[in-house]
């Protein structure tokens, strides 16, 4: 039976692992390769590196991180952050990464996902969706919404993807770490991304990210049941029960967490033992 996956996520800036509870308070917690080995030994099923390097000149550092990690750790490795052109994907795959996670570039230009899937195969194209409940963030929508040009240009896509009524019950796609609302309905967006060739969805609730209150289960389930590709749930994990809920109620195929593993509140092995006791198929 296919096991549900537990995926630790490491934020990497300028080649170093960081993870803060908010943007102001970023703590340096070490070397990416050591972290990867630490999770490998605990039986993590995959690893995600989220590259939050701001400066363009320093972007090549992540390739070196991937290269070194892939020399010692033999499990699937995903890198997200800053992927703008097809050659970025090629460089990462050549360095030893297995999948790339794409957010902003997909929102700016959905056809990029099609081109990427055609060139590298759907199996390595993960679309990251950052979503926020519309009816909880109406003020922001009115103030800041940035609707992409391609969406305004196509009446067909607009009818399908655009959140017309800001008071409707929906989740809106955001970019830039939850700062820029795009007017796109997250559930419809996930379906569209699957059509264009995405092989997996990495779904983060921006309402829950960093809160430790658990996944947005309603959002997770809505998307997981709308697409036939695997969905990784992310954002809000504070304890092991949350992981279980993401799988059992949210119907996620994999669960991603950062801080509970990073600050060693739980090990991946503990998480798996907990899930196994609850009847979830895990690899132990």
């Amino acid at each position, binding site marked *: *039976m296919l*096991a*549900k996956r537990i995926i630790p996520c490491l934020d990497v800036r300028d080649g170093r692992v960081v993870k803060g509870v908010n943007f102001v308070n970023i703590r340096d917690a070490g070397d990416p390769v050591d972290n990867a080995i630490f999770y490998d030994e605990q039986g993590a*099923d995959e690893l995600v590196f989220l590259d939050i390097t701001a400066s363009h000149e320093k972007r090549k550092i992540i390739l070196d991180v991937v290269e070194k990690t892939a*020399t010692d750790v*033999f499990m699937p490795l995903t890198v997200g952050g800053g992927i703008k052109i097809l050659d970025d994907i090629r460089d990462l795959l050549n360095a030893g990464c297995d999948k790339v996670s794409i957010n902003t570039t997909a929102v700016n230009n959905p056809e990029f996902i099609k081109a990427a899937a055609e060139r*590298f195969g759907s199996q*390595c194209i993960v679309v990251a969706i950052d979503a926020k409940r519309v009816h909880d963030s109406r003020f922001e929508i009115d103030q800041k919404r940035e609707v992409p040009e391609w969406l305004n240009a196509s009446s067909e896509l607009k009818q399908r993807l655009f959140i017309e009524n800001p008071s409707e019950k929906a989740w809106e796609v955001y970019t830039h770490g939850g700062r820029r609302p795009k007017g796109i309905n997250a559930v419809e967006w996930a379906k569209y991304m699957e059509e264009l060739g995405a092989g997996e969805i990495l779904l983060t609730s921006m309402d829950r990210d960093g809160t430790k209150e658990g996944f947005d289960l309603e959002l997770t389930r809505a998307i997981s049941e709308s697409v036939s590709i695997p*969905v990784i749930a992310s954002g809000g994990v504070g304890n092991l029960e949350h992981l279980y809920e993401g799988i059992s109620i949210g*119907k996620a195929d994999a669960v991603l967490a950062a801080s509970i593993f990073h600050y060693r509140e739980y090990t991946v092995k503990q998480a798996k033992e907990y899930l196994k006791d609850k009847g979830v198929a895990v690899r132990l």
Partner: protein
Amino acid sequence: MVKSKTMIAIVDYGMGNIRSVEKGFAKVGADVRITSDPKIIADAKGIVLPGVGAFRDCMKNLDNLKLLDSIVKEIQKGKPYLGICLGLQILFTESEEFGICKGLDVFKGKVVKFRFEGNQQLLKIPHMGWNTVKLVRKPPIFDGIQDNSYFYFVHSFYVASEEKTIVAGTTDYGMEFTSMVWKDNVFATQFHPEKSQNLGLQILKGFGEFVKKA
């Protein structure tokens, strides 16, 4: 270049995670070389064909590199072969990916897409993640590996082999499908040993040792 008595050629045809496979073999101390040169493949003591992506592109690229005949010839001569994912699938007669596409026809059978009905429609495609392999027969390269161990998979197509005797392992995903074949010198897995942590490395090591003894 000094000819090594144990060199294994990893076939590079412009697709897939060649580097991960190379690093995996390096980790277990095997002598591997990434190549698309038929001469080096002919000189090698073993061949590894990794790959993720589309069947048709794989065949097309191998054809463009004039490698199709040499791979089949080396296999028929008895050279140890390890196929991973696409390297398993192209051994078969044909694939239904994007219409019908011919394979190497080393084994009789088709490569078909997962299709789920009824309750199983909730099963996601690609089949992505860790799943168990039930050993029907234990190949020599599986030395020390228990039945029902977990390996990492990522694929939307599987092989429907007409030759039942070559099936060495099966996996359950809505149905029982062939996840490993073995016949004499030919080993091939649908899963990725190079991404399956220690157990995967053990298979690469096992293949390296098989090559040494061959």
